[in-house]
């Protein structure tokens, strides 16, 4: 919001459309920095669930509930991208190729990513049946999944890439880089059991970078750039919402906020 100290307070409000109109077209470097900042402000690393995870305070039951929810958020990722792929103009050849490569790698490039998630879930004590059963996801996880589908089906394709790939997927390496050593050292999982996290540090970095390339190349108007920034913010908020709900739904009765260094 723009503030003009010379105006009465009630006049110091510009609606978002006007703010967008007043913004300037950014070059690639400026736009990338703006995207990174839009995500950073609401990083899921700040959620109580992520903090408890990083500090080794979660039980295997908590991690089982995480896996049972996470499956329904990341499991359909290739589906989200598939809707998006179909709506991306055929003239955006490289962008389409990048989306297709992400889908391929997610599903059949190596091990199917969700199979590795299930392997981790089983190591936590839950079962494949429980993980794949949609009745076991929380309403908030269902909301995140629905938001991903809505963005993939309805948003401008470039804005959708910004939301799903830059806003959500590109956050993953920084989250898992923090969480994976803890899984080995504090929770005692083996390398094989935590492979889901290891592979995401590499593959999501590739996927996230492809997302950045698409958005930096094709968000070539002020309006598109501003919409991309906004949806990155919303995507990061959605992920934070989802992660925070994991804490309130499954953890808060056993680990209180002050134990995590957070205000109650």
């Amino acid at each position, binding site marked *: 919001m723009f503030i003009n100290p010379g105006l009465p307070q009630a006049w110091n409000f510009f609606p978002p459309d006007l703010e967008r109109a007043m913004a300037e077209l950014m070059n690639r470097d400026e736009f990338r920095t703006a995207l990174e900042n839009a995500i950073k402000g609401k990083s899921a690393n700040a959620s109580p669930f992520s903090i408890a995870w990083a500090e080794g305070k979660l039980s295997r039951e908590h991690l089982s509930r995480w896996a049972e929810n996470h499956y329904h958020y990341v499991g359909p990722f290739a589906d989200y991208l598939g809707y998006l792929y179909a709506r991306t103009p055929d003239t955006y050849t*490289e962008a389409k190729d*990048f989306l297709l*490569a992400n889908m391929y*790698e997610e599903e059949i*490039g*190596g*091990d199917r990513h969700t199979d590795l998630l299930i392997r981790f879930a089983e190591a936590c004590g839950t079962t494949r049946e429980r993980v794949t059963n949609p009745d076991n996801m929380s309403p908030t996880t269902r909301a995140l999944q629905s938001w991903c589908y809505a963005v993939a089906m309805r948003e401008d394709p470039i804005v959708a890439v910004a939301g799903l790939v830059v806003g959500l997927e590109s956050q993953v390496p920084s989250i898992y880089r923090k969480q994976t050593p803890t899984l080995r050292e504090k929770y005692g999982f083996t*390398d094989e059991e935590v492979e889901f996290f*290891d*592979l995401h540090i*590499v*593959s999501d*970095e*590739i996927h996230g*970078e*492809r997302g950045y*390339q698409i958005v930096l190349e094709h968000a070539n108007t002020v309006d598109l750039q501003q919409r991309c920034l906004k949806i990155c913010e919303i995507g990061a908020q959605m992920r934070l919402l989802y992660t925070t709900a994991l804490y309130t739904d499954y953890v808060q009765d056993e680990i209180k906020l002050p134990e995590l260094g957070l205000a109650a």
Partner: protein
Amino acid sequence: MPTVVFHKGGQTYTDVVKDNTNLVVRAGIKQFPFPHLRYECGMGKCAKCACRIIAGAEHLPPVNWKEKKQLGDRIDQGYRLACQLWLNRDIELVQDLEA
């Protein structure tokens, strides 16, 4: 910023990359060493990105469990999986024509 010297099929390709660069991530977005660096899964499972380090190996992190599993005895010959390496120092490496 690290200088990367990449050899393959008798050709040499050189470029400067940003700190903390992963060459498979770069190839995945069609930047140097694309299209020369062969890779496939990007997750340390297929070993298609295996390269022999000619110089700069001492600055790399220790061989991880995936590299041990995929490369076996080739580790002693200086092979590493490019997808598992984030580069912060100059490096020279060669990739065999056949995986």
